[in-house]
């Protein structure tokens, strides 16, 4: 690789530029659109020179949409609140359930442990609708349809396997000798888990939690099937918003920008752990 001709250098630069443009342009363009009124959006040819307006964001935040037919209420902020609540609560539950289980799988090779771990992993790859469609009826019988409780439970399908497999890898990386030494000093199992294992696996647990949050936030189909308007997160809400707001393109763009900002920010923050998380611990970054 050391010997690179000037021509090759130029070609590589060109190829990389094209790649960056293809992957970055849509984000850039929607971001610009969110500061535009319909007049400038509809102008032909499109221009990146315009006087930016915050009116789209103002309309979303106040929940009042001015249209030719009158004022329309939009529930977008409610969707945003639902997304935050559902994702945070799902990850918290998944951590409480998943971290002890991950520790058990990492430290104790007990009977059936691999089978159980793989059953949990296989949830990651089963078609979600296969479970969701019958679940709509069970939820009706149980009175769980359109409740946060029901949604958070189903969100465990995404969060739990992720937490379990990533955190398990982190526990396996900690030498068991440290824990034995602490146990021999007369400490209980629980004290060892809390004082030794948890702090050492801390960064991994945090990373797994952030990733689970991103996946929960980005989920679409669970809430599409199981939640009605007042419980829907942004992914489903934004789609409904497109239909209801009709031609308020600037506001749609602003809604998309608000919806993707949290995950993009978290991804940048946790990017060191993304490779490992996305491959469920198979590839180290």
């Amino acid at each position, binding site marked *: 690789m050391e010997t690179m001709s000037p021509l090759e250098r130029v070609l590589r630069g060109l190829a990389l530029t094209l790649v960056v443009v293809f992957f970055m342009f849509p984000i850039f363009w929607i971001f610009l*659109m969110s500061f535009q009124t319909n007049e400038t959006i509809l102008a032909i040819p499109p221009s990146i020179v315009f006087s930016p307006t915050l009116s789209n964001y103002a309309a979303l935040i106040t929940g009042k949409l001015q249209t030719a037919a009158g004022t329309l209420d939009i529930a977008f902020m409610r969707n945003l609140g639902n997304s935050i609540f559902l994702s945070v609560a799902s990850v918290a539950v998944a951590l409480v359930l998943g971290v002890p289980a991950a520790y058990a799988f990492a430290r104790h090779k007990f009977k059936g442990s691999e089978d159980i771990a793989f059953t949990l992993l296989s949830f990651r790859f089963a078609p979600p609708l296969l479970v969701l469609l019958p679940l709509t009826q069970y939820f009706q019988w149980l009175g769980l349809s359109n409740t946060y409780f029901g949604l958070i439970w189903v969100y465990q399908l995404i969060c739990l396997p992720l937490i379990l497999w990533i955190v398990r890898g982190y526990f396996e990386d900690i030498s068991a000798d440290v824990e034995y030494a602490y146990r021999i000093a007369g400490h209980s199992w629980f004290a060892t888990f809390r004082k030794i294992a948890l702090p050492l696996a801390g960064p991994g647990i945090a990373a797994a939690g952030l990733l689970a949050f991103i996946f929960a936030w980005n989920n679409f189909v669970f809430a599409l099937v199981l939640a009605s308007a007042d419980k829907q997160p942004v992914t489903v809400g934004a789609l409904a918003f497109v239909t209801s707001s009709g031609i308020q393109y600037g506001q749609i763009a602003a809604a998309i920008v608000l919806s993707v900002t949290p995950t993009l920010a978290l991804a940048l923050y946790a990017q060191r752990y993304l490779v490992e998380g996305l491959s469920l611990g198979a590839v180290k970054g």
Partner: protein
Amino acid sequence: MASTETLRRPASGFRISRKMLPYVLSLPALLVCIGILIPFFTAVIYSFQRYRLSQPWSRQFNWGENYLNFFTDPAFWNTLKVSLLYAGITVTLELLLGLGIALLLQRRSTINNFISIMLLLPLMIAPALAALMWKLMTNPSFGILSYLASLIGLHDFRWASSPDTALLTVVLVDIWVYTPFIMILLLAGLRSLPTQPFEAAALDGVPRSFVFFRITLPMLTPYILTATLFRLLDSIQQFDIIYAMTQGGPGNTLTVFQVEAYLNFFQSTNVGRSAALLIILWAITYTLSNVFIKNWLRLRERARGEA
């Protein structure tokens, strides 16, 4: 320190025996998941019933009829064809693109690291929202891509709303979202390869195409396999992008398995057919995931070993 610790602790009320401990620890996670296994078996039962939500009185077991009907059902063959086509095209293109980009970014440098982080962003956007972004960009009256298409002579290019180009459009969105996934795994793989074979080849003046096909590619194969199978498993079940973009339309151009099952359930309320479709999809993904898990385990062992 240690003694105060033990003194402060009240005499333990109950003790969990060493043998039971792992079961106790993993039990809560299991219980949550059992709640999810029950609907799975329910779906199997549905798939062997004539069951329409609009005619609950006619609900009865018809055993394999839902499955047998598929043989003579052109809509089913269309679903199978579109699903395989979608998965095949997206995964092939994403693999080629992802490998190409990973090779371009292989050398560690500030700019390369910066670019590889930037390229992750599409992957972190919800696929349903990514589809909305592209919907805005391909809008016939103001979409920037429609405008660009008109500049190269493609006037009135309809993107996702024409049956001729709908597949192409959703494939484009899928590539935009998921190529970074393959890229990031292969880049990590490339950077973890041992350096000696490459140094030896450079010393011997081996041509670079030979190095690529005989050294790089074989050593990268486990990573390529894992990334491909991972994507294949997701892609054959794609729902978010297609549903948010076209809801399976126009007509039945994009009625892949999960979209068709969703429409069957909620629009034509044919629960039996919907469940049978999903069971067939599950059989496909189950087979794939067994191959996948074997390969993934091998890679994981290696990652842990090198840690």
